[in-house]
Structures are given as structure tokens and as C-alpha cells.
């Protein structure tokens, strides 16, 4: 397997071909090679090594303002204007939860917005070309650095500048660096002599796409990365037919550079910092903090071997005591971390995320609890919900959705806060027993996963290793295990969306009890909907599954022969019930979201003939009142007789038209999606909804019960139509029987039952039982 270094060396043989752009010669940039890292770099000023901090460069912009001073909000607004004027479309950000992908939980870079899988191959699907997007990204691999180093965030905005499909459309290196240079010098007003362009290599982890990478630095700070997807590696460099420009800007860095503040947080959080300081009654020792800021890079958890020793060293250099360091430095660091974590939570909850003990929600719980622990540790008189509202106010000009979803953000934060409090009370004894004990990282991870007890609650510091183990565990579980039966891939012509229930087909393959036909009207189990049943000749079909493009029919007592023409019959009644229950599932999902809150998202579903179940993301079980409201709203939709529309369209068109709520059932691994629209509820779904024309055909929906099946997930069971009526008729029989036993009318059963029970109790008491 080739390494990144080896590929870089190949490209470095022809730097003028891969990295040089016309602008360099025109503006007087000269190429040099860094004596430390060996990378090429382009600068106007004579500098000895490249501006990478690892090669010895230090931040020269702190307190040295050379760019135009602009607020965080202004930087984006000016950037957006600049790129629109230069032919780009400005598109709204995509959600921070990457629902359109099944390999990552969170959006980690702007290019993720446009990456999709098409039968296992990564493709780009984009709503405009070229474009710019203020993409909010979440990364949880540097949690301990947040607040400490002055530049790490869990939530950050990566303005993505993208041009696709070059040379047919878009643009390439010359235009990219020209725009880069012009934005930095004309809008941010950075003197061109202070810009340095560094050569590097951009690659996908599997080298399926790679190419030159030009990093833009000024006074030691990396402001943007321009990646050019040029090649793929298949026993050597092979040029990609469709080339993509992927420029990731750092809005936090641009604002920091523009303001030349001590930390990036001071430039990014705007008036939220002032509000926090005022509410918490903190006075910042600016002089001391400035001195500390120069040394803070030494506490980067990625590089430091012994964090405690590095911290001690800094305290000595600052010539202050431990107590003063905690009070004047760590207190401010804690504030920055709380502000960052709350901002990340606000974006995630606004996009439908919910803290929980597994999956994507796990990371949200980690930062939420870390923020609560820091509030408690430093005795800050602040509330996380209140801070989220401050962020929503400040970010409103760019992200108005935070303000729109403010109530939901606060509700979820408060619910989670309550849970944390309850867990602390419940775990009091365990905390007492383990407090201050020198526990191993594995033991700490076990305590966190079993009881939700964080190292801080035990009087210990969280370590990088602790977070690394947790992160790995949760990221590793992202891809679900898929059903697999070893069978040769034979493409079946699928006709199950046609309303045909009797057909003839040819048997192509028989393996044990599995039969592959040349074509089929049998619907396989998919999208949460149970499969069709019926007969192939006289063999009963008990299961139908689809693997890749092959549909397998599992039959009882198989006597079918390969090559034979068979008569097939699909159980129509079963199909109709499944179609009704599946459509009811979409309606219940919609009704639950409307009644409970925006964080309600489908966590799973199963549609069967006796009932359907829908698992939704919610932090507590539903009350009787909520259940009734959901059922009533669902039935209102049924009675309004809304059309059930099914259309196949491209993913990119569907996302543009309906947003990312369409991915209720998860990512769709194909370019075209089947969109099911029932009133306002629109989902990408493979179910047989087209069997029904309108909601009235579903029949009334009856919620049978709800229960909390795991942390953050509530299961709703329901049925509809004749199944619901038959269920209720059975109940009616029971009520009639009970009334007969009591010798009263049905309406009197409750009252008379109470009377019977009271008399029974009285008699027992009389007899001393």
C-alpha cells in the first residue's frame, strides 16, 4: 500500500505542474523548500522555513492587527458578498448531523455536504456550481483542548468554496488561488507580503481521490486549505475524469486573525462572552491572561506527553500559585469551553440531535455533561439554556434557525440537565466509594458507560486517552451489520410497485430454500416494511429479502426447478395492510414531531400486519395526554383525505425541495430516491405507499401503547383501518362481558367496578385480612 508521503514525493518532482499558479509569478511569490519538513512554499518575503507551527513558526498576529477588523458575523457576510460577486451561489448550511451518510454521524467538513454514495462508490451531488456554504461542523476528537489552547472548538464554521466537474464546469487552480488571494488582500486587507502558500497533498483515506493541496498562511495562522481532487491511486496516479475544488476556509480563524485577539474565542463568541462574564461576575486579569496565552500552545493535548508537568511549568513561568492559576486562568478556560460546548449543542439540537448514551447522541451528552461539570466546579451562576439563547441571538444574522428553534434547544438541554442531576443522586454511593481512587482509564470508561459517572465527578481529570477510548467505541459502531446470505449476484427485475398480484416468472436459481426469479412482484423486507407472502406454484413463500440487486424468495418445502416457468401469487390482503400500516407510520412520525418537538426523529420502525411500531428519539416516555394528542392529529390527517404521492427524483433535487428530514429511515445509497409525500410529511422511502391514493384509505389510527426502550428512544405501537377496528371490537366484547358479569350497562362498568372493589376491601378489613 502506497503512503501519503510517497505520493507527495511523486508530485513534488513537478511542483510547477501541481502547485504553481499564474498569480505566483505575477505577484512576485517565489518558491522555496522548507529545511524542516521538506515541503515547498511560496512567499514574497524572504523567510527561512514554512509557516507551519511544527517547523518553528509562532503566531505573529496576536496583538498585531494587520487585517481589517471585522466581527465574526461580518467576516462571513463580506465573504459571502465577495464570492457571490465572483459567480458563486451562496447556499444555506447543511445539518450538522450527516443524515445522508451512513459512515459518519456528524458533518466534519463542508465537502461532506456534497459527498454521496452510489452503490458503494463516492460521488458528488451539488445544488449549484460553483458555490459557497457556511457549513457548521462538529468534531469531538479535541474536547480537552477546547478552552485551553485558545483555538480549538467542537463546533466551527467551515465556509466551503467548491467548484465541481472541471473541466466541463467549475474552475481549477488558477481561479481558486486568484479568488483566495483577492479575498484576503481586497476584503480582509491583508498585505500580500504577509501571505504564504504551502504545498501539501490532499487525499481521501483510501486514496480514491487525491491531489495537490495549497494551504494559505499569514503570520503563522492557517487561514484556508485549497484541495484539488485530481487523481485516484490505482497502481499509480490515474487522473480523475471529474475534478473537484474543495476549499475549506476557517471562519473562526479569519475572525481571530482580523481581530488579533488573545484567543479565537474572544473574536468568535462576540457579546456572548460579555454576557457570561457579567452574569458569572468574573473579572479577567488581562495582563496575566495575555502572558498565559503565549504559552498556551504547550498545553495542546495532542502534543504534550505529561499534561500535569506542562501545566506546572506554565504556572512557574507565570510566577503565580496554583490557586491563582485556577482562579485566573482555568476559570476563563472553563468559560470558553462552556461557550463552545453550548454552541455545538445548540446547532445539534436545532438540527434534530438528542443527547443519549449511544450513537450520535453520545457525543452530545459528553460535552453537555462536561459543560455542567465545569459550571459546578467553578460555581458559575449561569444556565446552559440561557447561554444557548445568547448564542442564538448573536448568530441570528447567519443562522436564524437557532432563534427559531430556541425553545426546543432549551427544553432538551433542561431535560438532559435534570437527567444528569438524577443520575448523580442515584450514583452517590458509587461516587463516594470511588472518589479520588487511582482508577485506570478502562475502569473510568466502564464507570462512565455503566453509570454515566465522569472522571471529574470522582475528583479526577479526564484524559485524552479516556475520550479516545470512548470515541473509538462509538464511532466503530456506526455502520450496522447487514444481513448476508452467500448467493451469486443475479439481478432480479423488480416489479413490486405495480399493482399486480398474480404473475408468471422463470426460476433462475434455487439454493436450498431460496429461489431467485427473473422478475418478481413480491415486495422484499425493506424500509422497515415486512415482506410479502404468497405462493410460487404450490410452494408457500414465507420470506422475501433483497441483497444488492437480487431478490430471494424463501419458500417452504421447495420443489422448484431452475429454468422452470412458475405461477406466482402475492397475498394481496397482507400487502394492503402493510401499505396502510406503513403510511400510518409516516403520519404518526409527523404527528409525534408536531406534538412533542423538532428533535423527534425516526430511530427505527417495523411495519407488520398485526401492528406497526415506530421508534422515535425523545428524552422521556410519552404522557397519556401526549399520546392522545398524537393519535388525534394522526386521525385528523387520515380524515382530511390527503393525497399520498410517490415520486422518484434525484437525491440532490429532493434535498433541495424537501430538506434533510427526508432521511428518516437513514441514508439512501443511490442517486435517485423514492419520495413519499403525505401532506407535510415527506420521506425518502421504499415502502409500497403507492398502493393507496389518499390518507382515508389508511383508516383510523389507534395507538396501542408506548414505552421507553432505551435512553433517548421511545417506541410507539399502533395499528390502523380494519386491524384497528377489529382490535377495538375485541375490546368491546370484553367490556360487554364485564358489564354482563356486573349486571349493568357498559357505561356503568367503571363506577360499579369501583364499588365492587371498595366493598371487597371493606369486607377483607372486617375479617382482618
Amino acid at each position: 500500500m502506497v503512503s501519503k508521503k510517497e505520493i507527495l514525493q511523486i508530485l513534488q518532482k513537478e511542483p510547477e505542474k501541481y502547485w504553481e499558479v499564474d498569480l505566483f509569478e505575477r505577484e512576485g511569490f517565489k518558491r522555496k523548500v522548507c529545511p524542516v519538513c521538506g515541503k515547498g512554499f511560496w512567499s514574497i518575503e524572504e523567510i527561512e522555513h514554512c509557516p507551519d507551527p511544527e517547523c518553528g513558526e509562532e503566531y505573529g498576529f496576536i496583538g498585531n492587527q494587520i487585517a481589517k477588523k471585522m466581527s465574526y458575523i461580518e467576516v462571513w457576510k463580506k465573504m459571502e458578498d465577495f464570492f457571490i460577486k465572483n459567480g458563486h451561489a451562496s447556499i444555506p448550511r447543511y445539518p450538522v448531523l450527516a443524515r445522508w451518510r451512513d459512515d459518519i454521524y456528524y458533518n466534519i467538513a463542508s465537502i461532506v455536504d456534497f459527498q454521496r454514495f452510489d452503490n458503494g462508490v463516492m460521488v458528488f451531488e451539488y445544488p449549484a456550481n460553483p458555490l459557497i456554504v457556511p457549513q457548521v461542523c462538529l468534531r469531538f476528537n479535541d474536547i480537552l483542548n477546547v478552552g485551553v489552547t485558545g483555538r480549538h472548538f467542537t463546533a466551527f464554521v467551515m465556509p466551503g468554496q467548491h467548484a465541481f466537474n472541471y473541466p466541463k464546469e467549475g474552475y481549477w487552480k488558477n481561479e481558486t488561488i486568484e479568488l483566495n488571494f483577492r479575498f484576503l488582500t481586497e476584503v480582509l486587507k491583508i498585505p500580500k507580503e504577509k501571505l504564504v502558500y504551502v504545498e501539501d497533498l490532499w487525499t481521501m483515506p483510501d486514496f480514491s481521490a487525491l491531489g495537490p493541496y495549497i494551504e494559505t498562511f499569514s503570520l503563522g495562522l492557517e487561514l484556508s486549505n485549497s484541495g484539488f481532487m485530481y487523481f485516484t491511486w490505482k497502481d499509480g496516479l490515474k487522473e480523475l475524469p471529474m475534478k473537484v475544488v474543495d476549499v475549506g476556509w476557517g471562519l473562526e480563524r479569519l475572525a481571530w486573525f482580523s481581530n488579533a485577539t488573545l484567543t479565537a474565542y474572544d473574536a468568535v463568541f462576540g457579546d456572548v462572552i460579555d454576557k457570561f462574564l457579567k452574569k458569572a461576575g468574573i473579572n479577567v486579569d488581562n495582563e496575566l491572561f495575555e502572558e498565559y496565552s503565549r504559552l498556551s500552545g504547550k498545553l495542546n493535548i495532542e502534543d504534550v506527553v505529561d499534561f500535569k508537568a506542562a501545566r506546572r511549568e506554565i504556572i512557574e513561568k507565570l510566577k503565580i500559585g496554583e490557586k491563582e492559576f485556577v482562579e485566573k486562568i482555568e476559570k476563563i478556560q472553563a468559560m470558553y469551553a462552556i461557550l463552545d460546548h453550548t454552541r455545538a449543542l445548540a446547532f445539534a439540537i436545532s438540527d434534530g440531535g438528542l443527547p443519549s448514551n449511544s450513537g450520535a447522541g453520545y457525543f452530545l451528552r459528553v460535552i453537555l455533561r462536561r459543560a455542567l461539570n465545569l459550571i459546578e466546579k467553578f460555581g458559575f451562576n449561569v444556565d446552559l439554556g440561557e447561554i444557548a439563547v445568547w448564542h442564538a441571538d448573536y448568530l441570528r444574522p447567519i443562522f436564524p434557525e437557532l432563534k427559531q428553534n430556541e425553545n426546543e434547544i432549551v427544553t432538551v438541554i433542561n431535560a438532559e440537565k435534570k437527567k444528569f442531576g438524577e443520575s448523580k443522586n442515584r450514583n452517590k454511593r458509587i461516587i463516594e466509594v470511588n472518589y479520588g481512587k487511582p482508577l485506570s482509564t478502562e475502569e473510568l470508561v466502564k464507570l462512565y458507560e455503566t453509570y454515566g459517572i465522569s472522571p471529574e465527578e470522582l475528583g479526577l481529570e479526564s484524559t485524552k486517552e479516556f475520550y479516545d477510548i470512548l470515541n473509538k467505541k462509538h464511532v466503530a459502531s456506526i455502520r450496522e451489520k447487514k444481513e448476508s446470505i452467500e448467493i451469486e449476484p443475479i439481478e432480479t427485475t423488480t416489479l413490486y410497485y405495480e399493482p399486480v398480484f398474480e404473475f408468471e416468472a422463470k426460476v433462475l436459481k434455487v439454493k436450498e430454500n431460496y429461489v431467485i426469479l427473473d422478475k418478481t412482484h413480491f415486495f422484499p423486507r425493506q424500509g422497515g416494511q415486512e415482506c410479502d407472502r404468497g405462493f410460487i406454484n404450490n410452494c408457500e413463500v414465507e420470506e422475501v429479502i433483497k441483497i444488492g440487486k437480487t431478490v430471494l424468495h424463501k419458500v417452504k418445502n421447495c420443489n422448484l426447478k431452475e429454468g422452470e416457468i412458475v405461477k406466482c401469487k402475492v397475498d394481496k390482503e397482507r400487502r394492503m395492510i402493510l401499505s396502510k400500516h406503513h403510511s400510518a407510520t409516516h403520519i404518526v412520525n409527523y404527528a409525534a414531531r408536531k406534538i412533542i418537538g423538532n428533535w423527534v426523529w425516526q430511530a427505527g420502525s417495523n411495519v407488520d400486519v398485526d401492528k406497526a411500531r415506530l421508534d422515535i428519539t425523545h428524552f422521556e416516555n410519552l404522557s397519556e395526554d401526549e399520546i392522545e394528542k398524537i393519535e388525534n392529529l394522526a386521525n385528523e390527517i387520515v380524515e382530511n383525505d390527503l393525497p399520498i404521492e410517490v415520486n422518484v427524483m434525484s437525491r440532490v433535487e429532493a434535498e433541495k425541495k424537501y430538506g434533510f428530514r427526508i432521511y428518516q429511515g437513514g441514508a439512501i445509497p443511490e442517486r435517485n430516491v423514492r419520495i413519499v409525500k403525505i401532506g407535510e410529511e415527506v420521506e425518502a422511502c421504499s415502502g409500497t405507499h403507492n398502493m393507496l391514493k389518499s390518507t382515508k384509505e389508511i383508516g383510523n389510527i389507534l395507538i396501542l401503547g408506548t414505552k421507553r426502550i432505551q435512553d433517548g428512544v421511545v417506541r410507539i405501537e399502533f395499528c390502523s383501518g380494519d386491524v384497528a377496528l377489529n382490535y377495538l371490537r375485541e375490546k368491546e366484547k370484553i367490556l360487554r362481558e364485564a358489564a354482563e358479569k356486573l349486571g349493568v350497562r357498559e357505561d356503568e362498568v367503571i363506577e360499579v367496578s369501583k364499588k365492587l372493589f371498595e366493598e371487597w376491601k371493606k369486607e377483607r378489613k372486617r375479617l382482618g385480612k
Partner: protein
Amino acid sequence: MEKGKKEVGKMSSEFEELKRKYKILKEAAKVFRVEDKDLPRVIDRFKKELEEMRKS
């Protein structure tokens, strides 16, 4: 939701009536803290026990 033609059909009225009765059944079952399907049997048992207790 988009507003369509609002028309509460026959099935809906039956559904509503059956739901009303189901609520009665569930409430009555709650009195004895049993599942609704067991209500007739439990009523029988309580009646019998009450009769026997009254005799003694």
C-alpha cells in the same frame, strides 16, 4: 397539514364509539390493577370472594 375535504365517515364514528368503550374498559381494569383482557375473569373472582367473605 394541508387542508383537504373534511369528511368524517361512518367508519370514523364507529371508531370513535369503540374507542370510547375501550377507554371505559381500560379505566375499569385500572381499578383492579389488571390487564383489560382479564377484567371479566377478575370481576368474577372479586364477586365470588365478596360473597364468601359476607357469608363468613
